């Protein structure tokens, strides 16, 4: 019985907790927090940029090892675009 009485008094004290709410200041703080929160689209964009940067870094570091290490990917692309090694251009030049 005593236990129950003590419990009820504890709950009554808890119910009596009244803390005034500084309404105006709190609302402006909430608005500030809402505006500060990054938009989902920004997060997606940031993620895409981070992924792009990661891929570029992997490519840049691994560049010398592409194609068995004999030639870099950039050099390979450059060679393919070079008119001197272009089979069509060679054909055109030979025909002339």
């Amino acid at each position: 019985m005593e236990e129950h009485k003590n419990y009820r008094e504890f709950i009554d004290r808890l119910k009596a907790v009244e803390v005034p709410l500084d309404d105006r200041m709190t609302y402006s703080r909430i608005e500030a927090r809402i505006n500060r929160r990054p938009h989902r689209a920004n997060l997606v964009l940031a993620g895409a940029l981070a992924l792009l940067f990661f891929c570029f870094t992997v490519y840049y570091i691994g560049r010398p090892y592409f194609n068995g290490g004999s030639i870099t990917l950039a050099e390979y692309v450059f060679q393919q675009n070079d008119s001197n090694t272009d089979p069509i251009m060679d054909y055109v030049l030979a025909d002339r």
Partner: protein
Amino acid sequence: MVKLDFADVYSGTKDQVWRLASRYVFSREDREDLFQEIFVNIHRSLPRFRGEASINTWVYRIAVNTSLNHIKKQKRHALVKKILSGLKLIEEEVQVVKIDIQEFAPLKKLNPRQRMILLLSDVEEKKLEEISAIMHLPTGTVKSNLHRAREIIKKEVGKNGRA
């Protein structure tokens, strides 16, 4: 979908949310932080409000989930602070225990879910079915948690010798 204005939801529910926050955590900073976090989450979830439950139940649901997460977050922060202060990377904070926190110290013996169920049932005087809907828990679970919470508080209050 039901279109609701955030300012209207805020003005209509701020008192009940503030009451819940001020009885769930006791330091001023925590209380204000929790209150703001609840309304930030309400603002974020507002476009998804379908009007299936009443706005009060829906707000309570967000408030309860945010409060439970708040306690988890606090525990994580405390652990990180403890580790960092152990490594002498930060200074240990001096704990300032206020009288009102000591008075409600028995609540700290409850886990976050038990504390919330006790508050909703015995302080906010909500029915078991309402608590079950707010917390997404079966009524039996709410009942057993409430019983356990009451037992713990009774034991703690008796130990502290408060009449």
